[in-house]
């Protein structure tokens, strides 16, 4: 948020944000579910607005998408395995924490598939919008490509400063993600220590806020850590290795139990 507010001490920004996230996570899985319905409605609405306004201001040129796959499909596959798979798709593992509250297996599977597919569509759509309005080189050049794309909207010189829409999308999206992770973390801790998960939410939130200030000093450090180091040292073990081992262990145990009962 320092893009929007520069002089305000970042601690204030972080503390207030984290408190509101805690208020959301405090409500439990049901609140998170309903909240995500609201937020997805808002986000999709804003995306469509941005797309529509860009179209009206004549900024979209599908030609900018070319050349398509000029270096072949290998770079695509390489990138998806090294980064896109883990962030954001690998993070879906967090929903295993809420698995018992999610209803029947069939419904969970259907909802999960629908969620992944639609998220992919939305992300692809957003990327497409950015390329069509700015071009691939410009997209790499800018820190927040969606923001730059929205800045290009200019309809008869009146509807032209639409940065706020993108700020809303980003803030609400990040907010929901934080709330879900916070809730999952608190629930996990409550399994170990026994107290209900609600008691851990506010303390965790404040701790996360404080740590976030200590962890990254600048944007490059944030990207470097977030997109490279975290993937190697945190995501692959926690999203792939440990769940896989746990699944195999459970499978062996269930086989053994079935064997002994027969």
């Amino acid at each position, binding site marked *: 948020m320092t893009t929007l*507010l520069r002089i*305000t001490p970042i601690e204030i920004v972080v503390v207030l944000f984290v*408190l509101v996230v805690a208020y959301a996570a405090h409500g439990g899985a049901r609140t998170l579910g309903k909240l995500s319905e609201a937020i997805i409605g808002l986000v999709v609405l804003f995306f469509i607005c941005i797309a529509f306004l860009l179209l009206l201001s004549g900024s979209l040129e599908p030609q900018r998408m*070319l*050349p398509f796959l000029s270096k072949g499909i290998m770079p695509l596959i390489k990138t998806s395995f090294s980064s896109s798979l883990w962030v954001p798709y690998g993070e879906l593992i967090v929903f295993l924490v809420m698995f018992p509250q999610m209803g029947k297996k069939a419904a969970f599977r259907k909802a999960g598939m629908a969620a992944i597919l639609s998220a992919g569509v939305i992300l692809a759509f957003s990327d497409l919008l950015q390329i069509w309005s700015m*071009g691939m080189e410009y997209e790499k050049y800018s820190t927040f490509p969606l923001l730059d794309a929205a*800045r290009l909207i200019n309809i008869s010189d009146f509807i032209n400063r639409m940065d706020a829409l993108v700020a809303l999308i980003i803030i609400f999206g990040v907010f929901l993600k934080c709330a879900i992770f916070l809730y999952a973390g608190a629930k996990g801790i409550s399994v170990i220590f026994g107290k209900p998960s609600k008691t851990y939410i*506010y303390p965790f939130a*404040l701790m996360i806020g404080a740590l976030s200030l200590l962890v990254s000093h600048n944007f490059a450090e944030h990207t470097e850590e977030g997109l490279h180091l975290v993937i190697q040292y945190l995501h692959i073990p926690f999203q792939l290795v440990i769940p896989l081992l746990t699944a195999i262990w459970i499978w062996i145990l269930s086989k053994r139990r079935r064997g002994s009962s027969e």
Partner: protein
Amino acid sequence: MNKRNKLFLGIWIAALPFLLSGCWDNVELNKTSLITGAAFEPGSNGKIRLTIETMIADQLEGNKDTVPSVLQSAEGNTLSEILIRFNESMDRTLLISHVGVIIIDERLAKQGLLHLLDPMQRTRFIREDILILISKDVPASHLLKVLYPRGTLTSSKITSQVKSYRISYGGIPESRLFDISEALLSEGRELALGAISLKGSFKDANTLQSIKSVTPKASIVIAGTGVFSEDRLLGFLSLEDSRMLSLARNQVKGTTISIPNHDNTAIRLYHLHASLHAEMEKGELVMRMNLEGDGTVGSVDESIRLTSIGGYEQLERLGAEYLEKQMSATIKGVQRRFGVDIFGFGEQMYRKQNAQFMSISGNWNERFARTPVKVKAKIKLYRSELKTNHIRNEGIGP
């Protein structure tokens, strides 16, 4: 209220006093002054001299007896460094987020734009659709000093002028900050920016006296297009060439062509489209341009009979030939004088025939300069406005 609720309430209340400790980022509007225009030119000792035009708000709204803007200059090395020095002479905090036009002197442009550009592209406050123009034949700051009879700010006059020119004549190519970035980032296309100049006597142009007469003493005119290689200015194109360039880049909103050798024949074109093609055929580069347009008849002379299909076809043919000739002349002129591809043939080839382009991308501009371009044009005429043939033609009447 149980202990847990008290704790939560306590946390929320403890957070609230933070809000009371101050409003850090806010700036009251009536303590600010908007920068609406800027001009860069070479200063003394190798520095850059920035002249800014700031707006005086209530003068614009209310009484018209005073000037609408105030200009100030300062010198320094980069935009960010210079902007902070203006308060040596100006009274309020300056907001740059509403600047409309930035004029760069041709001498500075010849040395290269990049060192001016980076702060403008980076900051959130300068929007990507501000106009950036090159000043031709006069120092850039002179252009901000010329008042216009409507009493509006000079910078809004310039932006409005450029827009209207594009609708009436076909204009200069889009010269926004975004276009500069795009051109610099793209492979196979060079930058072309609009140019403005001064007509008339500059001496009293910045006083109210000059606009209190029917013929203003000085006025800002659009002077063509500046052609760049990377970020260095090479030279200028004439207004006619600028129109053709805009046409090639699909940026013309409407124009009128007048056919030579037929006095008084003119066609008003509304929808114009150019498609560029560049590919390698048998190891040789081949470039083509197809122009299409439709419009209505502006004026005719007696030799063209608009009551018959043949007349329309003749007019369409004449128009198409004229366009082809003009476009070829412009392209040849650019190839000969500047040797850079400002039309975007390289860009098209990069997009559509990527592999072929990458093999010659190293010296694209030289190859472009050597290869002739085939231009084909096609015009469709729909209507002839309110009248049919020329009034002198026989056959009108019973």
